């Protein structure tokens, strides 16, 4: 397709004596881009206003489902903030309740604690693997493991969340976990069978759990020793669950507010 004659910046360049198409002034160029930029910004902000609550809701719902899953469907759970002085029900001063580091303590119907859900992330084979695991602090053993986010190789590394033998292999295992090659297990309580062909991915999963337990184990144990009971108003939130999405959005905010009161 040939250029139409309206676009003539080349012609201007080759023949400066004769400005065929008048060159637009710098002010006009800047004004054009500024106005276009302002409009673009406005439109994006409007769409963001609409989309953000839903994105947050999806994220909260995904985390909530994961917490429930790794703690084997507790009746309720409570968020605890990780602070320098151990676990706390109130967030540390000046920290955003949504992004603050948290663990989740699940309770059964009678209000007794069933275990802590802890998140962690470390680089795997392709990118960071984000996961959450359930941990029984008193016994020092795992309740379950779920990969939240991973870009591991399809067909090989993605077995860390697709291969149910591997995923379920974490239940009841004692920490620190030792990864063993297929068929090399000795029957010890701290062994997890690694995935053939996905050594790095499975080693990373095991590593994340071990490192997180190492970092938080003492805090969790100390907290478990206080024999925590389910709060009177069962967390996650006191909001009537008429609208699942909406209550999920409120999750974090409600937890923060409730813990603060």
């Amino acid at each position, binding site marked *: *397709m*040939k250029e*139409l004659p*309206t*676009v*003539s*910046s080349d012609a201007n360049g080759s023949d400066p004596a004769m400005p065929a*198409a008048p*060159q*637009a002034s710098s002010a*006009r*160029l800047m004004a*054009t*881009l500024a106005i*276009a*930029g302002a*409009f*673009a910004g406005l*439109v*994006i902000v409007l*769409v*963001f206003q*609409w*989309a*953000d609550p*839903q*994105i947050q809701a*999806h*994220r909260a719902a*995904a985390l909530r489902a994961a917490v429930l899953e790794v703690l084997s469907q507790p009746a309720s759970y409570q968020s605890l903030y990780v602070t320098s002085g151990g676990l706390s029900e109130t967030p540390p001063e000046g920290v955003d309740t949504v992004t603050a580091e948290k663990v989740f303590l699940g309770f059964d119907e009678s209000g007794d604690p069933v275990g802590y859900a802890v998140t962690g992330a470390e680089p795997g084979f392709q990118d960071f693997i984000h996961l959450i695991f359930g941990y029984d602090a008193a016994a020092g053993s795992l309740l379950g493991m779920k990969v939240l*986010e991973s*870009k591991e*190789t*399809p*067909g*090989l590394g993605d077995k860390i969340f697709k291969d149910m033998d591997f995923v379920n292999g974490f239940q009841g295992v004692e920490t620190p976990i030792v990864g063993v090659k297929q068929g090399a297990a000795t029957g010890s309580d701290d062994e997890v069978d690694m995935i053939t062909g996905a050594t790095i991915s499975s080693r990373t999963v095991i590593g994340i759990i071990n490192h997180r337990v190492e970092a938080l184990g003492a805090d969790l144990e100390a907290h478990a020793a206080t024999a925590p009971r389910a709060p009177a108003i069962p967390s996650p939130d006191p909001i009537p669950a008429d609208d699942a999405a909406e209550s999920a959005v409120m999750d974090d905010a409600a937890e923060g507010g409730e813990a603060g009161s």
Partner: protein
Amino acid sequence: MRETTPQEDLIRGIWKENPVLVQLLGLCPALAVTNTVPNAIAMGLATFFVLTGSSLLVSLVKNWIPSEVRISAYILIIATFVTIADLVLAAVVPLIHKELGAFIALIVVNCMILGRQEAFASKRPVGRSLLDAVGTGTGFMIAMLMMGTFREVLGNGSIMGFSILGENFEPWIVMILPPGGFLTLGFILLTFGWWKERQAESIRVRQWPHGVASGEEAV
């Protein structure tokens, strides 16, 4: 330059000048996110939306944009539509948005889209630009679907996640990995080229039924 008819504007991008299969534009998403049919569809739809939206807008404002800053202005318009698509996908289909990852944001640099603005929408009336964008977007979608189907069937034994080749099929994992994208595209382009050559051959035979030797130059 020969003027095109509206029908030509619409049809051209779908087949004769298919952005992926003929012009070889927009290959980055075509290689990267066609490992399953749902991903291919979502990417195709997002690109279609960005292309038609920005063609419409560029065509509407073309007289107000000084030619010196036209490329920046087009990119700004395209980037705005991409951000909208990104946010909408994240809000409506979070799982697919997660799968597509950075490739949604990379629609901004899809040369197919900027190419249509520069070569067509910035010089044509709104209606024509829209037809052209719809045609090109559909062509892109067709190419994405072809690749997505091919790769998911061979790489996973399924279509849209539904198993069609049964339990005993050993999936060709390479097909859903990056090399599979190149293999698939190469194979499709080969088939396309072969088919086009055959067509050209048959026209030649029809024009000179008694042999093509003397008419070779004329073709």
